[in-house]
Every structure is written in C-alpha cells, then in structure tokens.
C-alpha cells in the first residue's frame, strides 16, 4: 500500500509534481502512465526517500519509507537500471545490497535464478546490455522479498521474451497480495499488465481509475461498417457530433454514434450492411485524449517550459 498526500516537488520555479493524492492498493498491478517529464520518476523517487518532497508526503504501509526497520523488505524498487556500479560484478552488487539487511548468498542466488542472470552473474556490470541491466535491477528489487514493488519503466530495453516475463512476474506478484506499482510509456503494455491506472500529466493526476473504466470513458469509441451504399449512408449519419472517415471503398469508421443508432438508420433507409462492428478505443487513444485535454487546460496557467526538469 502506497499512499501519497498533497505530494509536491518543485525544482526552483518548475513544479515537477503538483499536489497529488493517490493510493496504490495491494493485490493489483497499478500502472503509472504519463508523457516524459510528467513527474513519474520524481514521484517514485520520493516514495523511497531519494528526493525530498517540497510539500506533502508519501507513506508505504503506513510509514515513511526511511522509518521502516527493514526498508528492503517493505519496498523493492527499480528506479533506474543504471543505479549500479559498473566496475562490480552482478553477484557482488546483489551481495552488497543484501548485506545491509542480513540477506545472504542463498537469496542472492535465488534472485539471480529468477531473473535468468546465472550466466553473467560473475561479469562486471559495465559490459551489460540494457536488457541485462534491467534484469539485474529487477533482481535487486526482489532481493528483500518485498511487499511492495516499484518498477520505473521495467520493460525498457527488454526483448519480447523479457517483456512477457516482466508481465507475468508483475501479475503473479500481485496475485500473491503484493502492491505492484509500475510506470511505462508503452500504453499497450499497460493495457495487458495493469488492473488500475494512474495517469499523470504535467505533474498532476489526470485519471485514477480501473483500466476498463478509462477505456470505456474514451471519446474515441468508434463503429466500423461496411456497405455497398456507404456514401449514401454517410450522408444520413452526418451530424455535428459525428465524425466519419473512410480508408477504402465501402468501409466507414464512425465516431459519435452507437452501433444501434447506425444499424437502425441503415434499416430505416433500406441500406444493406455487410459489417457493423463497435471498435473499442485502444488505451493509447484514451491516453492521448486524456493528456491532450490536460495540455490544453494548463496551457495558460503554467510556464511555457511546462513542469519538466
């Protein structure tokens, strides 16, 4: 359980995180979505006490992260795949991290096995690919068998097999009742992995809802139809709230009307339909809707540079 209250971070005149409140609940994968510079990483760093909030605060399982007796057992964090000394081997890195909490060789070997790093564990981290560095970061996060996992862009640099692995890992850890909080810029990835989404734009929360609700709330829910008399039907359907596009002869994509209305209209005019399919908006489209609104809304009230560092 992560609980943020009035969490704010300013760097000079720029506000990276602007007075946000949110709760990340156990047993779910919560996705943290937002454009680059929206404040996701800053928020995650504040959760584990690397950055000090300008105002407000954030607790993990009821306490500030630093006040836990065994921080690594509470939270495992992958904040930056490069947070590892390049001159040390993966095994020694994990051994040193674990030693702080009395975590020994057995567990180090266990997380090396879980992340598939056996063959490179003895090699210096400087020679690692982005994907291997990412796996090592995840291994370090798992070291304390934590109740809460914070993963900043965990699939960055992973191959498709690695992406699948992270997805399964996140889902299975959540199923054990752990709190999983992961950020990603891959919205399609979020649709597959997350149960709940917190969408951040310019340091503010634009949406905090189950993934299904965010998809349903999109204004871009469209209907695809195929008809030999498509042009005639398009004229009948046209209206101020309706947009119609066509990509090939006889195929229309209509937004702003439900499939029922379109079907009834066609039947009333005696126009045959060969296909009538509601097309769910992709999370990506829903997300673009959300962030676009946010940008427009804030255009007059923030500095031209925005809330970026």
């Amino acid at each position, binding site marked *: 359980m992560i609980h943020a209250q009035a969490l704010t971070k300013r760097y000079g005149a720029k506000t990276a995180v602007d007075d946000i409140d949110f709760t990340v609940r*156990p*047993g*779910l994968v919560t996705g943290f979505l937002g454009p680059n510079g929206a404040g996701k990483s800053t928020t995650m*760093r504040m959760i*584990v*006490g*690397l*950055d*000090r909030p300008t105002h407000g605060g954030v607790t993990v399982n009821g306490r500030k*992260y*630093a006040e836990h*007796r*065994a*921080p*690594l*057992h*509470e939270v495992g*964090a992958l*904040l*930056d795949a*490069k*947070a*590892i*000394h*390049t*001159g*040390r*081997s993966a095994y*020694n*890195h994990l*051994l*040193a*991290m*674990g*030693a*702080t*909490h*009395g*975590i020994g060789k057995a567990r180090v070997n266990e997380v090396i096995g879980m992340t598939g790093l056996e063959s490179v564990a003895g090699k210096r981290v400087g020679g690692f690919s982005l994907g291997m560095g990412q796996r090592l970061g995840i291994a*370090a996060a798992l070291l*304390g*068998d*934590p*109740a809460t996992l914070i993963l900043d862009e965990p699939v960055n640099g992973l191959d498709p097999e690695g992406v699948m692995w992270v997805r399964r890992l996140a889902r299975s850890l*959540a*199923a*054990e*009742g*752990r709190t999983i909080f992961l950020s990603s810029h891959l919205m399609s990835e979020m649709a597959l992995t997350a149960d709940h989404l917190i969408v951040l734009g310019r340091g503010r929360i634009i949406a905090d809802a189950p993934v299904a609700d965010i998809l349903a709330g999109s204004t871009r829910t469209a209907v695809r139809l195929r008809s030999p008399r498509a042009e005639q039907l398009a004229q009948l359907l046209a209206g101020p709230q309706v947009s119609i596009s066509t990509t090939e002869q006889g195929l229309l994509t209509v937004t702003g009307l439900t499939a029922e209305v379109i079907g009834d209209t066609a039947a009333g005019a005696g126009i045959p339909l060969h296909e009538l399919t509601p097309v769910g908006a992709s999370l990506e489209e829903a997300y673009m809707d959300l962030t676009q609104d946010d940008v427009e809304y804030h255009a007059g009230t923030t500095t031209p540079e925005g809330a970026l560092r």
Partner: protein
Amino acid sequence: MSAAVYTNLSTSGLSAAGVIRSEWIKLRTVRSTIWAFAIVVAVSVGIAVLMASTGFFGDEPLPAEAQTSIVLQASTFGVYFGQLVMAVLGVLVISGEYGTGMIRSTLTAVPKRIPALAAKAIVLFLSSFVVGAIAILASYLVAAPILAVQDIAATVDGAFIGNLLLAALYLALTSVFALGVGTVLRSSAGGIAAALGIVLLLPIIVSAIAGFSGAQWAMDVSPYLFSNAGSGMYTGGSLEQWQFTLIVAAWTALSLGAGTLLLKRRDA
C-alpha cells in the same frame, strides 16, 4: 480484487553491522581499491629500497638518535606518494557511486543515509590503516638490512614503532578526508582535483608565497596545512606530534562533517 495482502515475515532487517559488511563488500569488489592498495605498498617498499641503498651517511659513526631518524625517513618516505593514492581512492569510494548511479541503490537500501557514509568511513579508515601499516612495516623491513651495511640501525622502541604507526594513521585519515571531499563534490574529476589540490598543491603554494614575499602569515599557517601537519604526525616539527595528529583529524572531521550534512539534505 484479491483479498490477500502479502507480508514479509523475515526477521532480518537493517543493522549497523550489515551496513558495514555491505560497504566492505563494495570496497573490495572494485578494481580501483585493489590497485590503489597494491600501489601504496609497492611504491613505499620501492622508495625505501632506493633511499636506503643510495644514501651515504659518512664514515664517522652517527649518534643513535640520528641513525633512528634515518631509518624512520627511509621507511616512511613512501607516504608522500601514498597519501596521493589514498586521496584518490577516498574520493572514488563515493564519487564512483555518484558517477554510476549506484548511490541511488545505496541510499534506497539505507534510506537514513548517514549510516551508509559512516560505514564507508569506518571501512575505508580501517583498511587504509592496515594497508598503510603493512606498507610502512614492509618498507622498514627491507630498508633496515640495507642500511645496516653502513652501520645505520634504528633504536627500535615504543616511540619508533609509534612513529611508523602514526604514518599509517595519517594515510588512513587522508583517505577518509578525501571521502568527505568526494561526498561534497559528488564527482570523480572535481573531487580528485580538490583533494589533491589540498594535499599536494596547497603546501607548495603557501611555501612559495612564504619564500617569495617572506609573508609572516604564510609561515605561520604552514604547519596547519593538511599534508604538512600529516608529516609532522610522525616526524615532529614546530608543534608536538599529538598536536599535528589533532590538526589532521580536524581537517578530516571538517570534510566528513560537510559531506554528511550535504548528503542528508540533498536529493540523491
């Protein structure tokens, strides 16, 4: 929605001993440490051999006190070079973490931060002291038989051994002083430049001013400079040896104190 809430039931937790063990693992698992320590020993022994075998001390027998002083000089001459290596190592111990991002892992594991720096200082101090002592004792052991050929021998008493150990203590304090500098500056290049500037350059500049203009303040301030006080620790000089030791300790406390304060306050 799952009703289960996972709780980690392990009884282990963050401990001072654990943080010290972690820093010890970190120190010994990077090449720069191994290189630095090997160089300190090798150069110290090499210089001792050179000093002992090239020195000519006259045909007349020297008083015991002068003989002891010659042996001490030959055994500790490598400290002038060793201090530079220790200063570089001390900076790298922390700046290497800032440079690679490792510091974020360190401070996530030890979120109260100060125990991590304290553990670094303890581990660095002890290992530098042991390596410094090995280097200086080894230097004595190779220099002594060479000097014996010219009938030069130290009176090995408590004071003599104490001086050798004070030289090792100076090397250890140098590395911790540099750790503080590295913590303040957070960069290898800047930290090494600053630490070497204070250890190496500052005494040269001050003595150049004193020699050039004869400024009294420059002469007065000279024994209080880090490395001047450092050599005073084991050779003596215008102040007592314990006073020189306190001066070096004060420099070290100042730099480590500033580092601690900034580490606690700054975002990592």
